[in-house]
């Protein structure tokens, strides 16, 4: 289960809307493994509606988060025209050893109401976990 503060949920959705029509991306971080407290919007260096890549700003953010005692819990990105479900490209990229343990959080803008879902991807296995909004 992934707990998100309402502010964090809103920040992720706002960044996805800001990035439209391109995919938007960022990092979700927290002091504990199951609670996303901070969303760091990052540049999508691909500037594409079909793909995203994190750039140097993301890794600078990782170092800064580490200095604040926060760990990255998830890479977050939007799907502008498809469901909040990992694409084959996402699954292939999840094998990246640099991000072992990170969740994949998807924000879908396919419908008028944005949808946020969280997954753990292990090889070809995609396991969804419930996203629960909390008030801080």
């Amino acid at each position, binding site marked *: 289960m992934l707990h998100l503060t309402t502010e964090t949920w809103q920040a992720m959705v706002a960044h996805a809307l800001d990035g439209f029509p391109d*995919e938007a*991306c960022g990092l979700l971080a927290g002091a504990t493994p199951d609670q996303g407290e901070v969303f760091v919007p990052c540049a999508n*260096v*691909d500037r594409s509606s*079909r*793909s*995203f*890549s*994190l*750039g*140097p700003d*993301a*890794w600078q953010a*990782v*170092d800064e988060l*580490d200095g604040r005692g926060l760990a990255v819990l998830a*890479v977050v*990105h939007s799907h502008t025209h498809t469901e909040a479900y*990992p*694409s*084959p*490209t*996402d699954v292939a*990229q999840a*094998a*990246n*050893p*640099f*991000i072992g343990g990170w969740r*994949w959080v998807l924000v879908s803008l396919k419908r008028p109401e944005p949808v946020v879902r969280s997954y753990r991807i292990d090889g070809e296995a995609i396991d969804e976990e419930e996203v629960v909004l909390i008030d801080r």
Partner: protein
Amino acid sequence: MSVTVRLPTIMRSHAGGQSEVKAEGATIGEVVNDLVRQFPGTATHLKAPDGGVHKFVNVYLNDEDVRYLQKLDTPVKEGDQVSILPAVAGG
């Protein structure tokens, strides 16, 4: 040519915990090879089986991704900063 190479967290344990190291070379490819020569443990994350750079790694020269320059043949100057960054992407 001596350049500074910034390492991602996962590689620092293979370089004595350092976040930045010095490496020598006239091109990005030579710098990468010198890095692996000095710190053989970095090869796992850095080198692809074909001798190139691993697909999950991007190399930046100062603020430019070398994929959009001359890739491993990109020349470097004394004092340049090379950054090894995880290549996190999706679609």
